[in-house]
């Protein structure tokens, strides 16, 4: 996890619109996109598919309750992060 991501208190949401043919395809694309971005604990908070694609809100949990929180131990963010 980069230093900046350690500062994310709990989750990072990605809001976007995906061109797809169905809600099912939209779900798969969204989750795969989040995994491709390097996140492990991912979920789809919201999806609405109409016609040309799907409005989505995908989520990556960086810290769930009970985890050891990166932001408790975070140092100054490195510029190249």
């Amino acid at each position, binding site marked *: 996890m980069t230093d900046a991501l350690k500062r994310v208190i709990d989750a990072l949401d990605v*809001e*976007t*619109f995906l*061109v797809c*043919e*169905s809600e099912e395809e939209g779900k798969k694309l969204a989750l795969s996109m989040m995994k491709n971005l390097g996140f492990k604990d991912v979920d789809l908070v919201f999806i*609405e598919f*109409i*016609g*040309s*694609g799907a*409005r989505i809100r995908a989520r990556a949990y960086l810290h769930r309750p009970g985890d050891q929180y990166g932001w408790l131990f975070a140092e100054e963010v490195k510029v190249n992060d």
Partner: protein
Amino acid sequence: MTKKVLLSPLDPVHDIGLKMIKRGLDEAGLETKLLPPDTPAEEIIRICMEGSFDTLLLSRTLGYGVAELLARFVDLADAAGLRENVRIGIGGMAVRPEIAAELGFDAGFGPGTTVEEAVAFVEGKEYSPQENEIKKEKVDISSPYTYQYKNEKIGNLLKKITKQIIGWAANKTSPGVERAKLRENEWDYQAFLKKEDDSEFYKRYAQLCDQVPKDFYLQGVMHPKTRELSKDELISLNTYINNMQKQMRVKKLQHTRKLPIVWNQYGTGCPFMDIAHVKASEGWGADGVVHFDPSWGARTEGFLNGNLTHQEDGTVITPNNLYRIHRMLEKSTLWQVRAHRGLNTAETVVLAGKIGADLTKINICYGSLAAGTDPARLTIDAFHAIKYAAKYKMPFDVVTNEELTGVPAYKAFAGMLIVADLAVRLGAKPILQPLFAFSPEVMVGGQMDDNYIDFNAAKIYALRSIVDAPIWPGAPIGFLTQTEDRVQSSLSTALHALLAASLGVDAISIASADEAYSGGPISIPSKIDTLRGVEESFRFLGLAGIKPTENAQIWQEQMVRGIEKVLSQVAEQGDFVQSLYDGVLGSKEEGAFPGRAGYNTVREE
């Protein structure tokens, strides 16, 4: 034999969803029984078997431990032999269809499941969302109106002013008027569709243009911010559109009302991206879309030609671009091509009319006082644009955006009423467009210190007391109230939509949640944000209403008196164009400056 359905929530408290489904099943003539929340799984299974039920519908709202709970229920149902005769469906906020299928349920209904879907499952029918698809039709908001004046004094003043404008315009023309005439008389849309040679037309056309279009037609020099879309891109776009149109469906936003219809603007710069934006707008419920052209287009004499994409805000008007966007619109979508503020006003109306636009946008006062076009030039061009709008049966809105520079609403309204009156006399159908805005006038005057309701309501009351005409607040509603925060921005738009609905206006233009963001093009999610917000505001309001305070009445009366005063001054002066130069309809002190584009280009025929 009537099918028997047992419904049971697997929650300690939540059973609303099942109650709604029970009502749907009862209305469909099925026999139903709903168990109370927190009934143990063993008891549900026993009741189901003893009562010889055909279907068991379970629900689960709470998210914790769902998989374990459902797996246990399936195990118990299997062990009891329930599954041999009973189909089991599971739904609710915590249920995902894929988990239900994995656990062996006959059906899983996630959030957003309709009652019809559950009824279809119980009846063993294939659920067809198409049956519940919303059928939308185009609405002509101008048709119910008579344009009769309720305020006789104002009606008489307007008659005097517009008679003078008609006399003034009778023997005048401009390069813009001449291009519009050429486009009207010599450019054939059917020939364009058949890709017939139009080089002769454009040779003559170029002579009426200024340097940028002239260089384009005669030297092949492209405008610096544009490029031609490639053949491969055009072919791929067709495939994209064909695939998408098969699955298109649309929402209706107004809930139990018919109006206001909701407009969304597009103009990303690229017709392809515009198409993607428009399809999202249509899907999420916009009733109409507005073509937004680049600002330099208003200050350039003449249009370019071809399939052009543009790297900055606003999509270049060319026959190809308009044709491509128009042909992928849903049949129910209203299409407005705005002409209003520049040197191509009249020709835009001709082109839009020939290609099939439903509405256009024409004004004189805003364009010449706050958008950079010379008052005399815009008056003559708008005069002809209005006549073409009448010919092509395109109603048009008359904006009052000069308010944004600091011109008070009553002055902007006086100008709008002059253009509207002129339009009616020329056989067109104008639509009044007051701003719903946190304008400089109210920032200084304090009329919105308490709320955004009263002053906006006063505008509608004032216009209604003057003339029986359609009203379309814009553009967009909530101007200068939105911030970069998407929740605040969407909510502000939604609340202004709610006010508009409550005031019974005919249409509204809404912004995206990116309204206040200026760092780049707006995104599709930001368009969907406000459409969803507006949908929810209409759902919230229904046929109920908002009650303004007594200030709305006081400010309405002040506005009407102000409008009368301004119109009296213009009528007395006996020269509408000169009164624009002189600041009668918005002065330099109020931030209104007569434009320079097209200065000295009006000539007598």
